[in-house]
Each structure stands twice: as C-alpha cells, then as structure tokens.
C-alpha cells in the first residue's frame, strides 16, 4: 500500500462509484481539493476504504454488497454525493457546500444533461431545442 499513490487510487475509486470518467472528474478542477478534504476529515476510514478497494478486482461496484462495513459504506456515499453535488453530507439529510465552486462543479448537472443554475448558461433559446423531441417542430 505504501508504494501506491493514494490520490490516484481515490480517483480510480471515484470513477467506479460515480460512473464518471477520470477526465470528467479532473475537469471539475476540484479533485485534489476533494481528496485533501476527505483525507483531513476521515483519514482512517478513507485509508481503510482505499485499501479494501485496492483488493477488489471488480469494476461493477454495488453498495448492496456486504463487502463493506457500514462506516465504509457511508463514506462511499459521501464521496459519491460530493462529486455529484459539491455537498458534504453529514448524514442523509444534512449537508453543506464545500464552496461556491463545488456547487457549480457538481457532476449532477452533466448527469442530467443540464447546467448548474446560475452558471454556464446554455444560450438563448437552447431550452427549446431538444435532442429528444425531434418530432415536434418549432412553431
């Protein structure tokens, strides 16, 4: 484990649990920030999680499996939601944004084919130019 780059392992784990690619994750510009944040917040649990992940040979990662303890399971959920929303969930209800940037960089917007409200505008009329509804002509 000592020779393994734990930051790199964190990114690999993140790819697996979020369903996003490394490029997607790096494009947030917050990868190092997130890693350092979690490492400072939950150093032991993160280390344990990464160690365990290192020895899991599967890429299809499911939280249903009893492979992870409750504590590790919760940390995985926190990491998923941090990437998706920019929020740190203290429990399933309470959370806070790490920063205004983490709100904007939430991958949820990419996941739903949208943009963070208040940032990255999509252009005049873009809301009426669908990729799904080809059968509906513009008036």
């Amino acid at each position: 484990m000592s020779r393994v780059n734990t930051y790199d392992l964190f990114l690999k784990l993140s790819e697996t649990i979020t369903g996003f690619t490394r490029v997607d994750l790096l494009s947030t510009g917050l990868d190092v920030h997130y890693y350092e944040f979690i490492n400072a917040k939950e150093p032991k649990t993160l280390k344990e999680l990464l160690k365990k992940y290192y020895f899991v040979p599967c890429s299809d990662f499911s939280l249903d499996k009893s492979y992870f303890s409750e504590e590790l399971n919760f940390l995985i959920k926190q990491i998923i939601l941090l990437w998706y929303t920019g929020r740190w969930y203290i429990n399933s209800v309470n959370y806070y944004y790490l920063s205004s940037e983490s709100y904007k960089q939430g991958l949820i917007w990419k996941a739903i084919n949208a943009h963070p409200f208040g940032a990255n505008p999509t252009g005049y009329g873009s809301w009426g130019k669908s990729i799904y509804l080809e059968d509906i002509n513009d008036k």
Partner: protein
Amino acid sequence: MINECIDVSEKEFDVVIVGGGIAGSLIAKQLGIYGKKVLILEAGESKHMKYLDYQRNLDLYYSASVKSPNSPFSSNSHAPQPDELDVISKIPYMNSKGYFIQMGPTPYRSDYTRHLGGATLHWLGTCLRMIPDDFKTKTKFGVGLDWPLTYEELRPYYEQAEYEIGISGEVNDQRELGQLLNIKEEWFGKEYVFPMHKIPESNIDKYLSKQLEGKSITFQGHQYSLKVTSTPQARNGIPNMKYRYRGEPYKPVGAVGNDFQGKRCVGYSSCVPICPIQAKYSALKTLDSALKSGNVTIVSKAVVTEIKVDGFGKVEKVVYKAYTSNNPNDFSLYTAVGKIFVLAANPVENSKLMLKSLIKNDLIGKYLMDHPFLLTWGLSPQLLGIFKGPGSTSGIESLRNGKFREHRSAFRIEIGNLGWLWSNGAPYSIINSLVFEKNNSGKKLRESTYDMNQRQIQLGFMLEQPAEATNRITIDRREKDSFGNLRPIINYKLSEYTIKGMEAAKQTASTLYSYLGAKECTSYTDDDPGFIQYNNNSYAFSGAGHFMGGHVMGTSIHNSVVDKYQKVWGYKNLFAVGCGSLPTTGTANPTLTLAALALMSAKWINNSLEKEKITIGVDK
C-alpha cells in the same frame, strides 16, 4: 445621485418616495423626466447598483444550502425582511421566529426583499395583464371587491409599463387566449405588439402543447380548453421591429453598470432568485435611468419610521433612521421634507408605517392577499429536455375566467422548465434517494439520475384569493425586535372559496397528467406548513411571493384606503402605491399591474404639482 444614510433635512423636494422598488422607481423616473425634484428613501442597501457588487450576491446564492428567494440578498437588522424559510410549521408561534409575528390560523408563506430594487431582484418576471373581469368581481361574480377603475382606463398604462419593464411576448397568443377567456373588451390594442418577440417556448412547453391540443375539461357543464399559451415576461429577447414607443423602436436595456451584459436572456435558469447578467428586469434598471434625469436623489440605509401630519391632513415630513453599521445604536434620526409623499415600500411596510403614524382609516392593513400556490408533479413516459432556460416560459391560462368564479377561485397553471426543483428539490432529491435509499452507485446511478430527472413534469396552480377584512397586517407597539423595529403581525386564512379552487386545481392536474400519459406523483404530507384537508382530500399550498392588499383602492373612504390614483383618502399629499392597492388578485402575477398603476399615479402627481405651480406660483 446615490448616497448612504445622509441627512437631507436642509433640502426640499417636490416628491419624497419611501422605498426604491419597482413602484417607487417608476414614479421617480417619470417625475424626474418631468423636471420634478425627487428623493427616494431606501431602507436597505444600494451597493448592487455597482455591477461587481451585484455579481458578489451570486456567490451567496451558489453556496447557500437552500436556494430560497432571499438567499442572495442577505438580511439586514436595521431593515429586516421576512424569509419563506421562517415558515416551518402549521403552528403560528413556530413561524414567528423571523420578522413576522404569524397569528395564523394558516401561515402566510411569502417573502420580500429589503434592498434597493426590492422584490424585482428575485422575481421570476412573469408579466401577464389582469383580465377585465378581475376589475369587477363583486358585480360580476358576487365575490371580493370591485375596483374604482376599469380595465380600459388602465390599458394605456399597461402599455407604458410593458415598455418601461421591457416585455418579450407574442400578442397574438394573448389575443387567442382572450377569446378563450371570453373577454369582450379590447384586451390588447388592435395594432399593439410587445417590445420584444416572445422568449422561445421550452421543450416541455412544446410537448404539452402538442399533447393537449384540442383537449378540454368540464366544470359545471361548461367546457374549458386546456390550451398552452406563451408567457409575456420581463426578460430581454429579440426586439420586435414592428414595435414603436412614442415613435421609437425598442432597445433592450443591459445590466446596470455594464451595458455589455444582459441584453438577451442566455438561460442561466436562476431567475429566482438572481439573474447573473440582469437579462431579467429589475427595478435597478429603472433607478439607473431615473438618476440620469439629474433630478432624482437616492438615499439608502434610510428606514422611514414615521409620517408627520399637520392638523389639516397635510403631510409635512417623514422621519427616517439613517444607520451606518450593523449595530442597533448606530443610527441618527433625520427628516425629509417635500410637497408630496409616496409610500412605495411593499404592502406590509406601507401598512405598518401608516398604522404607526396613526393615519386615519380603519381599513389600513386589511384585505391582505397572496396567490396561494398548489404544486403538482408527475413523471412523463418520455424524456423532456428540461432543467434549462427561464423557470417558466408558458402556462395553461384558459382557466383564469369563467362562471365558476361565482363559487370558487380561478387559477392559472405555470408550466415549470426546471423539473421538480420547487416541489421536491430536484435534481438533488433524486440522487439523494438513489444513493441513500436505493444504494445505487456507478454507471447505474448515473443512468437513473438522468432518467428520473429528465422525465419530470411540474405544474404549479396559482390561485385567486378574494379580499377578506380578517386577513390583515397589524402592529403592536410593544412588539419590537432588538433593533427597535416594529414587527408586522399577520392574520391569515384561506377561505372555502379558495380551497374549493384548490380542489378544482387538483382535479385539473389529474386530468392533465392523464392526457399526458404521465404518472402523477403529487403527494402532500401533514408536516407541510401549508397542509390542508378538505372533503377528505389533502392539499398543501405555498406562497407565490405576491403580497397584495393592505391599502386597497376604492370609491370612498368607507370602502378603501386609497382612491384610484392611489392617493390616501383624507390626506392632501399622501400616496400609498404598489400591490397593497389591489382590491382583487385575479390570476395574473401582480407586478405588471402595480407598474401600470404606479405610472398612472406618476402622471396624476405631476399634474397636481403643475396645477400647484399655476395657483401659487411656486418655482417661477
């Protein structure tokens, strides 16, 4: 000129306006153009007249846990504001921990902003005209109050308001709607067009429009169409070359302090609470243009606390508290002197000020209204291309008028472009439940997040609420906050007439979701502060942010606080303007109507100042 917390007692103004929101700024601009010396006293801060300071509000929005209407506009202890997040319960006491003291029995769920620019900083920008029948509901339906003026009288001012605000819309869509609503009067002038072409309809607008083509609903044996209509809105679009105002074509107005920004909406989707580039109108634009006349002075951080009247019904001056820091003792009391005084500080603040100053009229504070808002939501069988564009670009407006108004409220239906954002906190609520409840992760999580969000339909029903004297704003001189501000006391209840409207709204929602082949997902829980049970069915209403009433207009001092020019009965030089003057809510978002009324008042005020010049030879 903008100043903070200065003393203006040495100067004499033609007109002193209390409040720098849309009503006050429109009046200031008109009077400034006519050469009158105008003072605006604004309780809140004015720093966002500077572009970069305005932009800084965005950071507050981005990092706010709950992106509520006031999230970018911070609270100020010298000029406290209500927050919709103050309402957390059905128990009135629990909802009274903010600025308002809520007496119930139902919570008043709306809020406003006490900053220069007022609530137009965080509004959506929907600009529908009221329909002529809204002006005579008592005569026509036996409900609520009649207006002292007709739609025809107000129509030219609606046109002027649409110019001043800058409306994008398609007038032919409104004309077609006029026929469905059985409007006999000339709702829009024959040659009239809006300043800018309509904001393009969204994907979901087009989908609903197609699915609902030819569909209708029956109420009491009458059939009503379910047609989708594009919404006229205060949002910059493409100028209509056919449009002329006093001979001039329309030029979109950009952001205050940065004219390179905001001349066209580019879809930031954060209209409520803040348009980053000011493509959505706010009163800051009117204030900016008012200042250019050279006749308008703005003093911010100046909270008017009292109106001083002489023994003959003439206002002599107003007293204001000019504060310099966020310390309760850090203020000075100054006075402002003028010929005419205009209260333009929002229905609650206007009522509070008149009550405190012992303005004589038993109806002050009474007839408080809102548009109770019933959210409904469903899942479409197909992907909709949503979560883009302004919050709403179309509505189903064809149920805003009909014989049913004798028995229950009418409503308009706002089609949401942002999924279940308002009703459920989507897209976050979806991923939260997928992760915490369904244990989803990886590619499956990503796919479900997409699918569950992109099929969301949200239809918001905005209900009419008739004026009732028991719904009111009062004060109690003992009820002050730690800064010495009187706290508004709110008594509020929805009548059976409105709840019956809610029942019809819910039935309409079910009909609509069934026409759309969508699964209706609406469910109301009894922990919602707006939860109501009626005829064994459950509902939960929200506020629309539409404070109305408090100083309603009418034909005499016996039935109203102000006349049709919004002059307070019994006082020679006192006006109370804004949504507080509306005797009925109708089903139009009220800002456009308040703007039209303010412009009518501005003309009247100017005429009376001119007459005074002739009779007593002032300013010669």
